[in-house]
């Protein structure tokens, strides 16, 4: 009988399946010049979503000399935040995207990824938090505006609050101290919204308030929905705040999830999430200054001229022109928040950027799930990132929170949105 042969066939299948287990290094290549391994992919993509658990009595860990407190809970998927001139905090809440499932894989992967997310329905609103007496407790929590469409990026300029919905850039007139929008928002311009595989629309504004910058993510991992749906995707738009006219400011940025203006220089910076499924230590998510007219590689190549053969037909001219990003944050960390620090934060955290890392799914050893600080010198990122808030992914293998947006307020508090615990955290110096 051929039973042994049949068993060996089954054994082969199990063996092949086991090849999907790519481990990945414990310490990833981070910084300005990361060493990149060769691409690799087992039969099955690594998928590891840590099991969600409530915080209970725990809180995230912060450096010595700092204290962390939850200043708002029971939100409905908080993402990005905006600190208004009077110290009030606006929180954008929602969940977007309507990408159809194209392959059997999308059905299965979608189910697995959903296990690591909150079950709460997105708020599609802006919530305002206020600490009127300055005691660090935000006693007022009220809805500033609702019925928005997956709001994400926020900016304040020209006496208006700008909100990047997943399909349009809108704005509300704002007067100091206002706790509720006085009217429905005015639409400045429609944003690319078909499919919205990467739906988040990051937003920032030039120091003079003349231009708004919107990050528009790609409609696929690496072009697997075809390049027809990638028109006006993986780009950063520059939009005239008066007329709403736009031009493409930079291209090839796979998923620019947060934008920020560097104080002083007025230089635009971005964090971007890079492509998945070519190994645990590829491709690094990055922090970079954005050059006008620059092309950053997607989908043809990554980190400069490393060709991604999955994107066919290739474009050698584009590959040659691809700009190497400034600073690697590590692969799969899912950087979603970016905010420049101020001297008021103090200590070694005065000059640099805070970055919220939502955490990995395409890696056996989870990475991210923390807020890091990247120190700057002479206006450029320098040295290793420093952990600022950790413990979102616990030593017990449970996930209690997932950081998204970060913001720095006038008093030197660092504010962190957590879209798993539906909480906003604030880190301050211990008095």
């Amino acid at each position: 009988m051929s039973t042994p042969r049949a068993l060996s066939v089954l054994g082969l299948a199990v063996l092949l399946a086991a090849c999907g287990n790519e481990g990945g290094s414990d310490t990833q290549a981070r910084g300005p010049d990361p060493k990149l391994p060769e691409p690799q992919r087992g039969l099955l993509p690594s998928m590891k979503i840590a099991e969600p658990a409530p915080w209970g009595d725990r809180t995230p860990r912060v450096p010595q000399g700092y204290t962390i407190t939850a200043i708002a809970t029971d939100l409905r998927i908080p993402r990005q935040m905006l600190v208004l001139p009077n110290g009030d905090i606006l929180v954008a809440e929602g969940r977007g995207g309507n990408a159809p499932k194209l392959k059997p894989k999308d059905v299965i992967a979608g189910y697995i990824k959903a296990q690591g997310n909150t079950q709460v329905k997105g708020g599609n609103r802006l919530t305002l938090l206020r600490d009127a007496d300055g005691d660090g407790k935000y006693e007022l929590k009220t809805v500033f505006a609702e019925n928005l469409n997956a709001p994400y990026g926020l900016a304040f300029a020209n006496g208006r609050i700008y909100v990047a919905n997943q399909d349009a850039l809108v704005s509300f007139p704002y007067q100091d101290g206002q706790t509720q929008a006085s009217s429905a928002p005015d639409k400045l311009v429609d944003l690319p919204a078909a499919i919205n595989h990467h739906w988040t629309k990051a937003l920032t504004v030039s120091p003079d308030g003349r231009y708004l910058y919107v990050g528009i993510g790609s409609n696929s991992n690496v072009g697997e929905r075809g390049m027809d749906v990638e028109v006006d995707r993986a780009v950063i738009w520059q939009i005239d705040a008066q007329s709403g006219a736009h031009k493409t400011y930079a291209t090839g940025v796979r998923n620019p999830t947060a934008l920020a203006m560097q104080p002083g220089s007025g230089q635009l910076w971005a964090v971007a999430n890079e492509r998945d499924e070519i190994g645990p230590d590829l491709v690094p998510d990055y922090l970079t200054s954005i050059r006008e007219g620059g092309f950053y590689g997607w989908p043809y190549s990554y980190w400069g001229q490393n060709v991604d053969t999955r994107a066919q037909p290739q474009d050698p001219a584009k590959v040659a022109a691809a700009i190497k990003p400034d600073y690697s944050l590590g692969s799969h960390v899912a950087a979603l928040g970016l905010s420049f620090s101020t001297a008021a934060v103090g200590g070694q955290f005065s000059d640099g950027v805070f970055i919220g890392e939502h955490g990995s799914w395409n890696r056996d050893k989870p990475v991210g799930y923390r807020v890091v600080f990247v120190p700057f010198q002479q206006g450029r990122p320098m040295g290793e990132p420093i952990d600022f808030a950790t413990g979102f992914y616990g030593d017990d293998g449970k996930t209690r929170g997932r950081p998204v947006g970060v913001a720095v307020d006038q008093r030197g508090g660092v504010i962190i949105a957590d879209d798993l615990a539906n909480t906003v955290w604030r880190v301050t110096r211990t008095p």
Partner: protein
Amino acid sequence: MTVAAHHYHPVRPGPLHALLLAGSVSLFIGGLLSDIAYYQTLQIQWANFAAWLIAGALLLSGLALLFALGNLFGARFRGRRPAAYFLLLLLAWVLGLVNAFEHAKDAWAVMPSGLILSVVVTVLSLVAAWIGLSNLRSEVVR
């Protein structure tokens, strides 16, 4: 003169078994043709078609495999052919599953391994179904 008397008990597949088997072969062939189209045109939709066709083929051939297993044990004496049919179909199914995982890769990462596997799996399933539908019987020696 003595004649070795062979008495055949045909264990032909029932209609449902036959439908599942034949259906899976068509779907594997469809998957292969879609792979060829993607390989030649780089039009991504063909890769999506191939992935679904192969998934459907696995569903049908997986159910046919259960019938084949039943026949294997149901035959009064286990002859060579039901075993050959079952094992070929099993091999086609296992390699088909590997092929489905290959087709879960993004864009051109499917190629060329997905195309090669599609050829192998289609041929295997065709041969398995041929044997299964024509000669499936157990030999009983009196």
